[in-house]
């Protein structure tokens, strides 16, 4: 069979799209090696000084650590909540499963700023504002719908009879879950976890409402920094963030590619 060649129109469109999406990101990299005091492209001189500045900037490092911790906690909580929820909705098919699923995934459709405002109002009254816990809970509202959707899809793809076969061979429900269900939805778990981490890690809108002097995340700290100054420090941080995100994506890709190679 002859392979279909993409038409030149398609090629041009794809190229334009790539340039449009990626060039702004790629411009960041040379900017981070600027020797200037302002964000200007192209810079007149080159240096590593902004990486040095970043290294000694305790505020940024503190925010980075907070982001990492919150991201990790949010990821774990998301999986711990979304996995049983998806199981109940998909497998047990309790009355109102459909409704529950729609309710859980509704935040995907709402403007983030509205969610942020709503959380602000509620958290203000219970004293969660400006705490790491508050930020983590706020992020959870955003990550749960994604995770639930991914895990529900993974569970739906797994034939019930496979779990039933294990049960008929003498496996108790927990054993079935551990030895059959879990390994078979592992790719879904990895994507759900990675996505939750990334969503939490670069969330700005909701976090802006919830952050305080005691607890800020890296993106919020960057935002605040930009409000007062526009030096290439931001570019240096961005390069680190891009690397981290790429690393997570690569890990996910590797592990899912690996597991799909034996679970189909």
């Amino acid at each position: 069979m002859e392979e279909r060649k993409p038409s030149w129109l398609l090629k041009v469109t794809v190229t334009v799209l790539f340039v449009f999406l990626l060039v702004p990101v790629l411009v960041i990299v040379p900017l981070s090696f600027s020797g200037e005091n302002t964000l200007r492209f192209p810079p007149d001189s080159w240096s590593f000084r902004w990486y040095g500045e970043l290294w000694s900037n305790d505020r940024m490092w503190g925010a980075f650590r907070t982001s990492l911790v919150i991201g990790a906690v949010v990821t774990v909580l998301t999986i711990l909540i979304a996995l049983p929820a998806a199981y109940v909705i998909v497998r047990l098919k309790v009355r109102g499963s459909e409704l529950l699923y729609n309710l859980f995934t509704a935040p995907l459709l709402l403007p983030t700023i509205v969610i942020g405002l709503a959380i602000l109002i509620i958290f203000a009254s219970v004293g969660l504002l400006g705490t790491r816990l508050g930020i983590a809970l706020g992020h959870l509202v955003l990550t749960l719908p994604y995770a639930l959707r991914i895990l529900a899809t993974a569970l739906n793809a797994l034939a019930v009879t496979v779990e039933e076969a294990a049960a008929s061979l003498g496996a108790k429900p927990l054993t079935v879950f551990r030895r059959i269900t879990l390994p078979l939805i592992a790719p879904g778990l990895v994507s759900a976890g990675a996505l939750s981490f990334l969503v939490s890690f670069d969330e700005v809108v909701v976090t802006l409402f919830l952050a305080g002097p005691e607890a800020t995340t890296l993106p919020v700290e960057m935002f605040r920094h930009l409000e007062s100054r526009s030096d290439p420090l931001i570019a240096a941080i961005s390069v680190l963030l891009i690397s981290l995100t790429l690393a997570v994506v690569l890990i996910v890709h590797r592990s899912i590619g690996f597991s799909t190679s034996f679970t189909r």
Partner: protein
Amino acid sequence: MAPTRHPAKPLNMTLAEADMRHGTGQEEPAAGGFLSLQGLGKRYQGFTAVHHLYLDVPRGELVALLGPSGCGKTTTLRMIAGLTPVSGGRVLVGGRDMTSEPPYRRDMGLVFQSYALFPHMTVERNVAFGLEMRRIGRAEVAERVKEAVAMVRLQGLEKRRPRELSGGQQQRVALARALVIQPSILLFDEPLSNLDAKLRDEMRTEIRDIQQRLGITAVFVTHDQAEALAMCDKVAVMNAGRLEQLGTPTELYERPANPFVASFVGRINRLPAMAMGTKAKVGERELRLTQPMEGNIEVMVRPHRIQLEPAGSAATESTNRVQGEIRRTTYVGDLIQYVVHVDGLNWSVEQPTSASATLSPIGAKVDLSWRVEDTLAFKSAG
């Protein structure tokens, strides 16, 4: 008490030991089977898949569940295994009510119609799974897995995963996985549907052999009636969620309880008639019946119980005969199949080739005669 551990069953176990193993010994009611379905029913919203099913399977017997597609065979097996909740009725094993026991405590091996292999495990791990659940030592697991794999002729494929196997090979893994645990009850859902004729024959023998040697009670779903008749002690014929008849192959074949069973098990010719006592009128002709009946009936005769004779041969006391005209003849080696036009209906007649060396020509007028005992008669519906 629930059997939480399942010790390995030695092949040369005595009957007494077998009784102790099942923990039922004397309590088992003499009348009921080891596996007893009592009024089992399944309703889906507005649709009844299985109606009040009563079925007793004595210990160590293999009962076939035979019926057309969609008649409720899989649903019945799943209720026995505890995978589908029953809408009514009970499942007893050795007199013990299992209806509300979870599947993992029933000690039943189930071969799924869809195989349901574990996609992330190799053939070997798939087969070993049930043994591991029974906490059997590693050495014995390896030994028994090897035996089971050899039994289903899959040596050399132990390290493959299900998606690297053909449909028939997958089906054999499913078979090995259920047989290797030597459960007290085996449930087969069309376990040989995907195998070639030779392999199917071999597997039938293997299944029957293991089942008899270990005295396992088994239900074998199939819609291949030859398979049901050939390998099972009894056959339960189902239709539209109901049990039509339970009997030995001979009973079903020679004394079907109703027209459905008569036509579903083996082939049969039908002829409407008017019964008066032990006589039935077909047009001008009179047929003798084995029992007195009245009114509109349907007379049925199996194709190979019929003799073809030249038209006008004299009737005898012990035979029935009708007239017909040969429409088609097919020579299939060991027999000749005739299509004979009888009273506006096409009958099929089979004659062994040795008996009739000459082929009756198409268009020939013939008499079809058969013994009175071979005459089945049922009241016409409506």
